């Protein structure tokens, strides 16, 4: 779907170059965003796997001490 202006004048050339440049930047942004999603997803998965391996699979435990405190003892 790229632009080819081989038969056009100089303004057409500029115009098509601008369009193609726009596509390249858009492509770069899309690849960066995909890599970002991959990077964040992998980080979270690895961190989750590490927590499971270390026996903290169920997240942050409620602390009874903080609920009732030593004052109640």
């Amino acid at each position: 779907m790229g632009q080819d202006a081989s038969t056009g004048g100089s303004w057409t050339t500029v115009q098509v170059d601008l369009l193609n440049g726009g596509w390249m930047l858009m492509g770069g942004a899309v690849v960066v965003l995909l890599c970002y999603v991959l990077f964040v997803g992998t980080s979270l998965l690895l961190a989750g796997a590490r927590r499971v391996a270390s026996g903290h699979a169920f997240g942050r435990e409620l602390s009874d001490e903080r609920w009732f405190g030593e004052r109640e003892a």
Partner: protein
Amino acid sequence: MNTVDPAAVEMVVLTALALAAAAFGYILLLLALSRYEPGVASRGALPPIRARPKTLVVVLECRTREDEVGETLGRLLSLDQPRMSVLVVDDRTSGPVADVLGAVSDPRVRRVRRPDAAADTGAALNAALAHLRSGTAAGLPSDPEDVVLGVLRPGERCDADTVDAVLAAFDDPHVGLVQVGMRVQDRRQGLLARVQDVEEVLYTEVFQRGRQHFGGDSLGSAGRFVRLSALVSLGTSSPWREGRTPELDLGLRLLVAGWRSEFAASGVLHGPSPSGLGGWLSHRGRRLQRRMQCWPQVPRLLENLSGVTRAQLLVGLSTPVLLLAASLLAAGMVLWSGALAIGLARGTMALSWWWAAAYAGAVVPAFLLAGVYQESSGEPVGVWPRWRTVLLLHLYPAVVVGWSLAAWWALVVLVTGREGRGRSVRAGYAARHRKSRRGAWGWLVAPVCLVGVAAWMVFTVAGSSVQSAPPPLPSVTGETP
């Protein structure tokens, strides 16, 4: 001239459409969720039991906007809040702050000296904390669990409902810090101030409220209310680190230490807006810079937190990377705009249904968000009608471009340690800054590599110079298939 491979363009279009659809769906989902109060289960909190009344100590840090100390102090003292006192941090024996304090005889106002004139915000807040822990502050509960510190700056104000909402949120003993929404105080005094107000209100009313349904903790822009016992639990006399706005850093460390953050939906802080476009960019840049400075904490965050909290914080802290990618999109749009301008001038531009579809995709959420702003802002319809907000939201692409510029500025400051016009950051800040930079290098490598890989892929594909049919979007010749 190079010709872009049609297969590559197709892939870019499809992926961009998928990402745009995902973002669109996420906004609509949050918009729908934000209209309902979350249940107890999704907030991850149990109903408070035996909650004792809390006392709020507002720490008024007077390094900037000294002329507005009197007004801020007057508003605070006019609130009908018997369990609130004000601690003013200042080091000067003369000047606007001294004049104001000299005229105030209210016993709820106390003054603590800043360690030295060059001390930054973090040091000033640590001095206030040392004062509170020294026992010289009379009238405070003996249990630090019942004392809440709120950090305000001159020019900001909060109302009695906000104080009530914040203190009620601390009834849950797991909550260590509370966030509230932000409003721009002088929103009626200019377009830029109004744009910022729309941003702040929508962030609070749609994103913060909507995310409450997913549970977990997140950090907003105004996590300024902290429980004293949470500060004590960090085991240091200086929980606020050096830096201009150390609240985010502190908030992350509290979450890693096991405390929860809560969003008080009915609370709001009113603050002044930065003046001018440069001020706005610089303000946004500092916000992003704060997030970048917290990147060294990401490994601890991944290790110690879990679930939705971990995901939300990771995405929140990596927002600058998203904005750097968005700057590529913005640059592409600028090139396309140039091509369209040439087409318009030469009369060769043809309309495309893609444009109508893109415009509809932008306007529908704008119309919905304008309704949210109208409902939530409390503005009389005659003063600020809904159609004005719809028009204003058409400026949103420009706002995103502004955020992208701010992200590059923040990246440059982080890497070089210098702000604009060769001005170096202050000495106290610079020490912390250097430490952050060292830790952040690992995280900086990631976006740089991403951009490098993206550029390599795109130019490799584009370099194939495949002759192809004219593209369907955007069309310049009118001969599109």
